[in-house]
């Protein structure tokens, strides 16, 4: 099984590396880092951050907005698109187990969506080091882990949507809607309104805790802004309830668990239905 899984992963990586979306995807994340250098963020010192820290937190905030929708759309587009184009019909006529195929595809896609984001961040670190900035290694490691679980989380969701939707149009619509709902439930947009309307703090915290984008956002900001003054009111409740360490653990464990659950559910749906 592991051999077929690796072969499928490599085949998927090869397919992705030759596709247009991957080039655009890589250019966007590489471009963000370059744009941050050009705008001189590495040089600025605001609220006591070092320049590199500011670059990283800006990069992560932008990533939070772009990465989920990019991972969702490219995953559902390529998986549902491959099914429609007859790629599944042919490749699944070869003696590969469905588990090897499905998890191999996820593994390949994960490498493809995570590496450009990670490499762009490393580019920022190297640039900072060359400029003589102090490298906040602890933050870099936690940020890398956060990016990793964010990519995994939305990849799992994308695979679930791909398994449920029978056409790439439906899959893309569902992916976009998922992203939009999560975006609307971000702290500053909805939760503040809910609090001002008198919703209970438990509801607010619960929504903030189950929205992976919000979890990522709060976790990322927490490293730079321990009092979370830059975030909205729900963040304070979270901080009071969870504590810093507790929330950082949650921000790594929850998206990873959610992504794994979605991917597993997608696999159950995939293996029970028609394959092509």
């Amino acid at each position, binding site marked *: 099984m592991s051999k077929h899984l690796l072969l499928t992963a490599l085949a998927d990586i090869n397919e992705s590396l030759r*596709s247009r979306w991957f080039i655009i995807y890589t250019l966007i994340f590489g471009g963000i880092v370059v744009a941050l250098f050009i705008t001189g963020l590495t040089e600025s010192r605001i609220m006591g951050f070092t320049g590199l820290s500011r670059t990283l937190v800006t990069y992560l905030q932008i990533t939070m907005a772009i990465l989920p929708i990019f991972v969702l759309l490219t995953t559902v587009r390529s998986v549902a698109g491959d099914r429609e184009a*007859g790629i*599944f*019909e*042919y490749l699944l006529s070869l*003696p590969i187990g*469905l588990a090897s195929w499905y998890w191999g595809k996820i593994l390949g896609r994960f490498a493809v969506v995570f590496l450009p984001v990670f490499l762009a961040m490393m580019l920022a670190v190297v640039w900072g080091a060359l400029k003589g900035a102090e490298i906040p290694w602890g933050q870099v490691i936690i940020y890398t882990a956060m990016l990793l679980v964010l990519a995994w989380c939305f990849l799992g969701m994308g695979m679930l949507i791909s398994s449920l939707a029978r056409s790439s149009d439906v899959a893309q619509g569902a992916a976009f809607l998922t992203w939009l709902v999560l975006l609307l439930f971000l702290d500053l947009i909805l939760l503040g309104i809910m609090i001002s309307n008198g919703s209970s703090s438990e509801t607010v915290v619960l929504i903030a805790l189950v929205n992976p984008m919000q979890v990522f956002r709060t976790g990322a900001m927490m490293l730079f802004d321990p009092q979370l003054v830059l975030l909205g009111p729900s963040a304070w409740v979270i901080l009071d309830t969870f504590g810093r360490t507790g929330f950082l653990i949650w921000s790594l464990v929850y998206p990873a668990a959610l992504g794994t659950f979605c991917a597993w559910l997608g696999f159950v749906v995939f293996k029970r239905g*028609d394959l*092509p």
Partner: protein
Amino acid sequence: MININNVSKIFRQTKVLDGINLDINKGDRIALVGSNGSGKTTLIRCLLGEYIHEGEILVNKLQPRQHREEVLKQISFVPQLPPPLRMPVGQLIHFSAEVCHSDPEKIYTVSESLGLDARKFKSQAFVKLSGGQKQKLLISIALGRDSKLLIMDEPAANLDPEARHSFFNLLAQKQHDTAMLISSHRLDEVAALVNRVIELDQGKVILNDQVADQVDMESILDCEIQLTHAEPAFAKMIEEWGFISSSDGMMWQGNVAGPDRLRFLGAVSRYSGILNGINMKEKS
């Protein structure tokens, strides 16, 4: 070898397969014919374990869906439409050979016999090949491995006459120990390759018959055609079969693969008004 018992498949309240019962045995070379929408592709996908369905399919007593790997190791498949794979040709060959436990060299050898030097295209994306090249490569992958059942969906549609002849030779080598299921919407395309015909219509088997099995798949016919007058459209068609004309364009000579004779005569019959004589003789 294969038992199909009361298999039905419904897509959104439309019954695409309706209680199919068939047995396929070793040595059977079956033409699976029927018009578009008759259920040919659906039946093939059920056989490959790609569709869930009512009823039961057993390949050597194993269900394709429950025992995917064991069953698919025994089946080679050539799809009607080549998948738009972006992976390089070399990687596709390597990938297929690895998962099928076959030797990539055998695939290269088969592709050479079909007139495709796959090594030359190793680093080229599969999707960038021409239609004929893709078809040759998919046939090479299917025939370059050991299997007990060969399922082919319109396999020779994109092949030139020379490649068709090589293809028939390769099938001839496998005919005694492999069952073949060749799908086509036209019987004349595959008639000479098969010894049994199954026709589907609206998801039901309406014909299941043995046919005369007298055509030697490796045979070649010497052919000579005489025309009443030269005709550019005829010249274009017959040149695609590799024929050579006399200087005045009235006489054409060439070879036709034995199993292709019906298809060839079908093509020539469109010009019956200008035919003055046809002579076909099997080469000894």
